[in-house]
């Protein structure tokens, strides 16, 4: 799923400083699960902004809404009535959600309240780690299901760099070295021959940016 994190309050305040009445829109999917932009976070951010405006001697009026999936046109349609009542929208969706609202309601400025960080999974409660870079040419069959593109800080395809240190990564001693993990898993599975093979450089044309996929209809 998509993992995001709230922007610093100061940045959000600056974005919306000129407005008196805004709509905060959450998303009920990924960002709800990663505690960044669900109904609850919408409520808290709205309250925090009202207090912050008051603190600075102003006043902010807020409306709140949370749609099931902000990245779908049909689902943001329900915001129509509320958007008509406000000057701007503050989205707590991922970047795709922000853009979906902005595209559907072109007259209204839409602002991102989150920084969309990565595609990942919850490691434990309250901790999410990146595990897919959407490279467009999945390599996991050769690495025992551990992604070398994003879980290795350098995205190496042919084994660990010289910085690997007792299973940890040169970049962050808290982080596991992906290539040590890959080695251990392949060893456990008796598939180390996969690691001995040479892999040519990645094909960055695997996804032509901006990416686009059209379903084949049969």
């Amino acid at each position: 799923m998509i993992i995001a994190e709230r922007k610093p309050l100061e940045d959000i305040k600056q974005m919306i400083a000129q407005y008196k009445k805004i709509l905060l829109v959450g998303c009920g999917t990924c960002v709800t699960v990663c505690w960044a932009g669900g109904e609850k976070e919408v409520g808290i951010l709205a309250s925090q902004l009202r207090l912050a405006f008051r603190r600075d001697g102003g006043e902010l009026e807020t409306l709140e809404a949370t749609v099931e999936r902000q990245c779908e046109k049909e689902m943001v349609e329900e915001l129509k009535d509320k958007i008509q009542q406000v000057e701007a929208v503050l989205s707590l969706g991922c970047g795709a959600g922000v853009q979906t609202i902005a595209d559907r309601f072109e007259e209204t400025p839409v602002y991102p309240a989150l920084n969309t960080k990565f595609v990942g999974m919850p490691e434990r409660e309250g901790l999410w780690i990146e595990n897919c870079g959407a490279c467009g040419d999945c390599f996991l069959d050769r690495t025992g299901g551990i992604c070398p593109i994003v879980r290795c800080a350098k995205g190496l395809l042919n084994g660990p760099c010289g910085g690997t240190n007792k299973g940890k990564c040169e970049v962050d001693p808290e982080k596991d070295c992906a290539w040590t993990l890959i080695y251990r898993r392949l060893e456990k599975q008796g598939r180390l021959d996969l690691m001995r093979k040479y892999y040519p450089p990645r094909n960055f044309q695997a996804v032509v940016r901006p990416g686009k996929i059209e379903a084949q209809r049969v």
Partner: protein
Amino acid sequence: MTTGVEFLPCIVAFCCVHSAYQAADAAGRMRIPYPENIIMVHIPCAGRVDTLHILRAFENGADGVVILACHEGACHHILGNIRAKERVERANALLREIGVDGRRVEMRTCAPNDGSRFARVCHELEEKIKELGPSPLRKHA
């Protein structure tokens, strides 16, 4: 703030029905005085208090907020007071981000029969909030 009128802080106390709420009763029965400007909110468990409730209290004019829970290990719902503690910390952080002293929110514990502790805690809180002065988050008149 220099009107000469003494500042009477408005403190919202979320009181767990298994401990602090009973302790308040005990204090009453034992005729131990405690500040009258404490607004008690009766809650089924400290774990019921959400970060948003704390922020809302400030929106509605509170100068300070306290969650009064059971002693650690004594929560009727096992983890309620631990959850409450996390939320108090979260609210602290959110207030600091706004530029408000995080000490305006805190969590305290109390046994159900300890009326004198309840009263003492209330006095301490009142003193602390008096020191911090009125909340800058009060609605401007």
